[in-house]
């Protein structure tokens, strides 16, 4: 299957010298969903920030055949849709429809086309009824859906979701999983929730100290690193 994302030997240090990524190699195929597991501070979010040029490290990144270089950034950001952990930071426009139209308008689409795409994306995530509402009136689950709609309206080929189940109750998590399963894009899923990852992912990689130290199925990695059994063990 065609690779839509290829990362080779990616290294990154923060300005204070703290090493965050130590030689990441990663490939994502078209339509594939990969879960990124690992402890807090293991480098998962830092890695995500490199995928659309929010951070720049050493190494090579190719997104849909485009090298991660400044002239390609606009096109790359249209291909990779990032859904951040805190939807509150992602929904910054006064109304839901304004927010969902933000990306398409930045892509240079006309207001009518952006509105059409925005409404279609809201329909896909089941939030068409909220188009005229202010984002702060929505529940956490609804905010997450609108954040995803804001990305879908840009027609990306890859969805990157950072801790998508944060702030969601179990029905909200189930609804989100149902939605994500229906979306055809390739997905990268950063989560601590192994069961959620298992429901959605074809495979998983495990981050430790800025490196990918293991790769396999979610079940295999969860067992190997005692990922979802820790609480039961503590009991």
């Amino acid at each position: 299957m065609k690779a839509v994302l290829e990362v080779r030997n990616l290294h990154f240090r923060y300005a204070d010298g703290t090493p965050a990524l130590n030689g990441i190699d990663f490939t994502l195929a078209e339509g594939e969903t990969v879960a990124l597991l690992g402890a807090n501070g293991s480098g998962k979010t830092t890695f995500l920030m490199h995928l659309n040029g929010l951070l720049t490290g050493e190494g090579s990144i190719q997104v849909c055949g485009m090298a991660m270089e400044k002239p390609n950034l606009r096109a790359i950001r249209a291909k990779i849709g990032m859904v951040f952990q805190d939807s509150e930071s992602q929904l910054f426009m006064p109304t839901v429809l304004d927010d969902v139209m933000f990306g398409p308008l930045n892509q240079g689409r006309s207001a009518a086309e952006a509105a059409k795409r925005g409404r279609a994306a809201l329909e896909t995530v089941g939030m068409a009824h909220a188009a005229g509402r202010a984002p702060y009136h929505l529940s956490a689950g609804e905010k997450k859906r609108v954040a995803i709609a804001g990305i879908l309206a840009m027609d990306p080929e890859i969805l990157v979701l950072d801790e998508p189940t944060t702030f969601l109750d179990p029905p909200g998590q189930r609804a989100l999983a149902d939605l994500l399963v229906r979306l055809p894009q390739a997905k990268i899923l950063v989560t601590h929730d192994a069961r959620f990852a298992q429901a959605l992912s074809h495979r998983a990689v495990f981050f430790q100290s800025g490196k990918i130290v293991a790769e396999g199925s979610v079940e295999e990695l969860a067992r190997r690193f005692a990922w979802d059994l820790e609480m039961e063990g503590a009991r």
Partner: protein
Amino acid sequence: MQPALLDRWSRQASILHRRDPRAKIAAALVFLVVVATAQPALLPVSAGLFLFLCAGLVVARLPLGGALLRAGIVLPFTLTFAAICWMAGDPWRGVSLILKSYLSALAVLLMVSTTPLPGLLRGFERIGAPRFLLMVSQFLYRYLFVITEQAQHMSKAAACRGGMRFRAAAGALAVLFARSYSQAEDIHRAMLSRGFEGRFHGPEDTRFRAADALFAAAACCAPLLLRLVIERVAA
């Protein structure tokens, strides 16, 4: 003032709500100038302008008592300055300050209660207000709720541990500032991820209809004529 309440009021349906924001902005600006420059027969002129605004509130189907009460939000500030004028031996200037500030607040309240914020900001943009200022206003309005909620959570957490004294309140304020700063960075990242390149692209403007022009002409002339007539009668 409760922003959520204003938001609800601004999304009601009335003949005033349907008017183009630019017409309402023009009417409000003219009204402010008429009030600010009123000198002779100030009491009867103020009474006339007050009744004019009350008529506007009735036409807009807004709760009269609630709106009159909320416009009083400016009074604590102006009362302070009025007290200073009174102590300086110029009580009439103090009375003038109170009347003018209250009427101005009521006029602005009528404008924002009949125009949803996105439309209002777009209206200001169309009449040439600085885009950067409008962007800041939009973000302030959007995140005021989030920051207020965070402050309330911190206050509750402090109350659970014995209440918030001056030192703790100062610390909480610092934490709130740091969180707001961090959230601003997250918002900026989310904006860049969706192709933001430093300029907001607004949806297409609604047409400025003949009814809007008629309304603007009437609403601009009425307070001016009212003032001139009352001043002449009083003279």
